[in-house]
Each structure stands twice: as structure tokens, then as C-alpha cells.
């Protein structure tokens, strides 16, 4: 069981802020394929190089393994201040 979080404009594309998945796949590539199945626009948006990913609140590479992943966050370019 894993929780997928979408922030900023990715939330608009996903149509929700969070998803609960029984199976999220072995790695981020597999998860993106899974999310693309129902929403092609979301798949494309998640593949953008500007999107950062955190697994269990740690930053990871775009092809990271999802072993032990409980929370996966997709983050478009950040902007505070």
C-alpha cells in the first residue's frame, strides 16, 4: 500500500492531491507507466525533467526503486517566498 502525492500544477493534471495504490510497481518508471494508463496527460507531465520526486520524504532520482515506498511525492518546480 503506497500513497502518491501530487503538488502544484501536477495536482491539476492528476485531478486529485493524493492516490492510494495497492501496488505501485518496482520502480518509478513502472509507477509512471501505471499512472499513464488512466491519464496520458499525467504520464507526460510526470516525465518532465523539471519534476522532482521524493520517496518516503527523501529526494530520489527519476528511476529510483520503490522497494519499501510508503509515500511517493511528485513535485513540479518549486517556488516559495
Amino acid at each position: 500500500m503506497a500513497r502518491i502525492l501530487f503538488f502544484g500544477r501536477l495536482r491539476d493534471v492528476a485531478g486529485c492531491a493524493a492516490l492510494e495504490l495497492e501496488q505501485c510497481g518496482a520502480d518509478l518508471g513502472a509507477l509512471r507507466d501505471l499512472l499513464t494508463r488512466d491519464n496520458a496527460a499525467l504520464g507526460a507531465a510526470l516525465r518532465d525533467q523539471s519534476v522532482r520526486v521524493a520517496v518516503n520524504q527523501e529526494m530520489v532520482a527519476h528511476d529510483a526503486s520503490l522497494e519499501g515506498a510508503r509515500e511517493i511525492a511528485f513535485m513540479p518546480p518549486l517556488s516559495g517566498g
Partner: protein
Amino acid sequence: MQIRITPDRFAPEQELAMFLGDGREDAGACATFTGLCRGGAVRWLELEHYPGFTEARIAAIAERVAEARKLLDLRIVHRTGRIAPGEAIVFVAALAPHRSEAFAAVEALMDYLKTDAPFWKREMRETGAAWIEPTAQDITRRARHKETR
């Protein structure tokens, strides 16, 4: 060192009063920055963060800046949620023995917050909503500070 992410309005002058309240005699310099919500075409801002993750990332960067600049104290307050024109979005204050370190720390932290802290900002305009992303200038400015990389 205090880092606060809050959905509530805050007053920069109260933050400065609390920050300087201890009255340490080794401090010679206090630099601050307050970011304000501009009006005009913008009716309000919506700021979102990633609870837990945002605080942890800012704390890690703040500790590195505090160490690199040998700060005596540091305060960061960042609003989330709906922010109206004229309201404060962010307040950063650095206390140091001398001014160059205090200025450098506040600038480095603001450049970081603008480009790399986990916040997402949307401007609500008459014409609809627009997500705001860092400008090329923001990214260039940030690259100046090796301690926030």
C-alpha cells in the same frame, strides 16, 4: 534558530521583536527580509507546501547557511494558504557579529526559498489562476550560494 511554516497571518515587526528580544551582546548585525504579496492584477496568492518534508528541507539548508556564515541566530517564517495583497509571505532574519555575514545569509536563504524550497505558489487573477515557477534570474541568483546547494 526558529523555522515556522504557518497558515496564519504574521506581523514582520513582531517577528523582529522576538528575534532581537534576547539582546545578546555578541551580535553586531541583524539583516532581515520580508516578502510581501503584491496587488494589482493579483487578487490573492495560494501557497501550498508538503507538510514534514518542507520543514525538514528548509531546516537542513538553514543549518548549512548558519554554519557557513557563523550566524548567532536565524529565523524563518513562511506563510501558506490564501495570502492577500499587502500581507507578508515570508520573513527571514539573521544575526551575526558583522554585517557581511548577516546580509549574505539572508540573501542565500531567500534565493533558496524562491527556487528550491518545497512550496507551490498560484496567483489568483481576474482572468483565472496561474502557477508561478522560478524565473531564470531566480535560478541564476541561487547558483551564487554554494552553501545552499
